[in-house]
């Protein structure tokens, strides 16, 4: 019988997956994001700096994150993730293979004109950076370096050289974990963030007490959030029950697994939030209306929650179709209902849940704060990990969040991140008939791009420029190391 070769097992590849996909590093409360453009002619120095970063042990793998959680002496105090845009990969000498090219959204980049229309961005004049050549004053970012470290400590990462790179940093918002003193992540408008993340089967499901507690809290809604790994990590089974498409790079040795195995795509947007305008709106209309806009209460519980606030798992355990089909509790155009409609859009509950699992995002962004001459500006550095940009990020953005005709709504896009020109309306359904509020837009994107988050071996390959490529045997050997 012909030897049947199995696809890679996720459990054996944890050493190669960057830790960002496994954990949001919630205990590392400081963050900084570096947007780097490699200057012409400095590719070798850039590679050298990246190689030194990769060797420093700060780029953690999923396995390392797991070890850090299991033993307190191995806990991680600083973590770094490195991602490249398509132009960045080309600049560093990796050109896509013809038999397995990168997907069109990634290769054309979020900054391209077509993607602007497809993502329904009305204007990009205020964009400061993107992943392709943009207008003057718009930086073309090649490398995204995300850094998380313990609050109020010094970071150990060596800063990049301004001679080699054009550097833009997005700094931490010190209030992101401090509001309300419960130590949870909150975004600049004051809402709890980081809730309702999908649980990746085989990767993020830790065994033991915390998972059992989460399952208990969620009741029979726990399965709604368990998603196949291929939705976020390339090369594994996804919600269609097939292996995610892994593009390849010409210079990668063909004998091993493909270049993009264990990688992921990041959809990144820097969103500036107008906190003052939001506060004024809240004063004028009340906290209740603000919560209806977002679709959740400020403390993270869903609207319509009775009783004392529950755990994060309980905050994600609800559906819309039976209890709230008409939007009386959570309005049909509210932000979280748009970005995750759960069981409300299909023909019945099971098929709706199944199809909503096809459009999940793993969010890894952090609030940021920018100090300017005219004061501080807060915002959210939004990072979404997914394996199929068109089906996940772009679909949610185009068909749900920014769609002025979402469901049967007319001329209303997302109240929080929508881009329709002011003044906008927002309908709040109710009995006997709903009400409308007028609002202005509270957010403005300042930049964005698609980045590829490589596996550890692929990262080594990029920075060592072929010298670091591993064969399949070496892969197995390294996986066997406990």
């Amino acid at each position, binding site marked *: 019988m012909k030897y049947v070769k199995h696809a890679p097992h996720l459990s054996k590849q944890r050493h190669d997956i960057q830790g960002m996909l496994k954990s949001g590093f919630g205990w590392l409360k400081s963050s900084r994001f570096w947007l780097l453009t490699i200057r012409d002619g400095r590719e070798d120095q850039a590679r050298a700096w990246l190689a030194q970063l990769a060797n420093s042990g700060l780029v953690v793998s999923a396995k390392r994150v797991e070890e850090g959680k299991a033993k307190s002496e191995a806990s991680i105090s600083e973590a770094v993730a490195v991602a490249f845009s398509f132009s960045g990969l080309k600049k560093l000498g990796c050109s896509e293979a013809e038999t397995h090219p990168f997907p069109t959204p990634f290769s054309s980049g979020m900054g391209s004109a077509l993607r602007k229309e497809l993502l329904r961005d009305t204007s990009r004049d205020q964009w400061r950076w993107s992943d392709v050549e943009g207008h003057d004053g718009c930086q073309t970012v090649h490398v995204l370096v995300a850094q998380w470290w313990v609050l109020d400590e010094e970071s150990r990462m060596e800063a990049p050289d301004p001679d080699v790179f054009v550097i833009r940093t997005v700094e931490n918002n010190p209030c992101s974990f401090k509001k309300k003193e419960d130590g949870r992540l909150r975004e600049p408008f004051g809402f709890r963030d980081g809730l309702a993340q999908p649980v990746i089967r085989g990767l993020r499901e830790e065994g033991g007490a915390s998972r059992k507690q989460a399952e208990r809290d969620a009741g029979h809604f726990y399965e709604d959030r368990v998603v196949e790994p291929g939705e976020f990590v390339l090369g594994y089974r996804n919600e269609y029950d097939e292996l995610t498409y892994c593009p390849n790079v010409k210079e990668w040795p063909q004998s091993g697994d493909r270049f993009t195995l264990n990688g992921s795509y990041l959809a990144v947007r820097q969103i500036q939030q107008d906190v003052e305008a939001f506060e004024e709106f809240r004063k004028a209309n009340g906290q209740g209306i603000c919560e209806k806009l977002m679709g959740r209460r400020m403390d993270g519980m869903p609207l319509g929650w009775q009783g004392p606030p529950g755990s994060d798992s309980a905050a994600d355990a609800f559906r819309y*179709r*039976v209890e709230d*089909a008409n939007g009386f509790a959570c309005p049909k155009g509210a932000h979280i209902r748009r970005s995750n409609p759960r069981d409300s859009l299909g023909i019945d509950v099971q098929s709706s849940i199944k199809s909503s699992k096809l459009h999940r995002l793993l969010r890894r962004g952090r609030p940021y704060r920018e100090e300017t001459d005219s004061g501080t500006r807060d915002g959210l550095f939004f990072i979404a990990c997914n394996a199929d940009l068109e089906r996940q990020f772009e679909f949610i953005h185009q068909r749900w969040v920014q769609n002025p005709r979402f469901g049967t709504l007319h001329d209303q896009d997302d109240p929080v991140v929508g881009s329709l020109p002011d003044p906008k309306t927002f309908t709040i359904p109710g009995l006997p008939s709903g009400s409308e509020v007028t609002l202005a837009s509270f957010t403005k994107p300042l930049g964005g791009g698609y980045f590829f988050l490589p596996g550890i071996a692929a990262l080594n390959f990029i920075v060592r420029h072929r010298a670091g490529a591993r064969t399949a045997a070496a892969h197995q050997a390294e996986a066997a190391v406990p």
Partner: protein
Amino acid sequence: MKLSMYEPDALSPGARNFSYGAFCWLNRHIIVLRAVGAVLRRWPSLGGSMVARASAVKGVLTRTRSFSNTAHEANMVSGTYLIGMDPGPTYDSDRDLVHQRLAALNVPVDSDDEAKRRINTVSQPGAGAFDLIDDYLMWVVFHAMRPLYGTATGAVVAGSAAPAAAAQGNVNQGLQRQYLLEIRYVAGQLLAGSLATLGVRRRAETCGDALQARIGRLTGLIGTAWGVTSSTADIERNAVGLAWISHPVTVQSGALAVQELLERPKVYEQLRSQAKSLGASVWTDANFRNVVRDHVLELMRFRPIFPLLARDVPRDTEVETGARHNAKCPGGGKVSLLSIAALFDSTAVPDSGKFCPHRNWGNEHALRYLMFGYGYRQCPARDYAVEILTSALIGLLTLPGLQLARGEGKAIVYDGPLMSCMRMRIP
């Protein structure tokens, strides 16, 4: 004021009689409904939009925005009232008024008194058989509910504000009986609804008209008795509603409970011997009263007066019946609840088939009162009704024995789905 207008019967002649007959038969032989309920609990998809499981019934009853009580509207021949209204300002003000009136009741003192009096009358030697409904329950409940109209009760019962008739307690027995029959037929229409034959429906409509006329003459008096300054229409609506909604339903529930008790001779014997051992303190002993109350609730569980409820569906929605796929409820349609099936759902009620008055209901304490509704729209007079029936049952337990009086014709005479006469005999 609701104007009743003649509506001819839309069904073909035999079909109406047949369906009404089937409906009445099912109500009398409630065990059949329990069997149907068991089947539907096991295979919910067979029921379509009829829900049988306790979780599903509770779900429907608590989703007051998706499932509207206006389904009752059509059966209310004497005008709209709380029970058939959607939530809103009218509903809220009516509900407040009901609570205010209920606070005026003095239960169980009044019901105890009347029960004692009536028991004395029927246990006179040589009294022979008596009618449980017409000679006992009707009066016990009536007496307990007198304070609902305050000083205007006499006038309401008499039908006019004439000074002689307005004196409390001196209203002619015949007039009282007329009033009580009126409200009974109006209440009966709530149960039978659109299934009733033309004759039954017309009778109910006539009684509804009469009741409205009766109240219409006395709105001023009632308003003063109640001490409210609402408009005439509001007072009329509430007065009419209060008149017919509670008395007949309580009486019927009591009769059904007694019927169930007499089919369980061991339970009856135990209660009776307990009553006998207490002697004169049977009316004052709090423990015994609790025991009887538990028994009343359990008996009502086995024979609820409304085994089948209906709700209107104002807009397209789904209901979780427990089947693998939710049942779709199109807007404009109806959803039926087999509440008797929910009361015997073994996932919610441990050992549901057994007669166990002291059952530990655990988390499902509210489910015990499912015969009165569930959640926000549950009957506000629930506890009062249970107290009245407790008094009535205690009274019956003081008798040396009780049997259905078989002999001259049937013991129980049915008028449609309800009992109109239940002849009892003390052996």
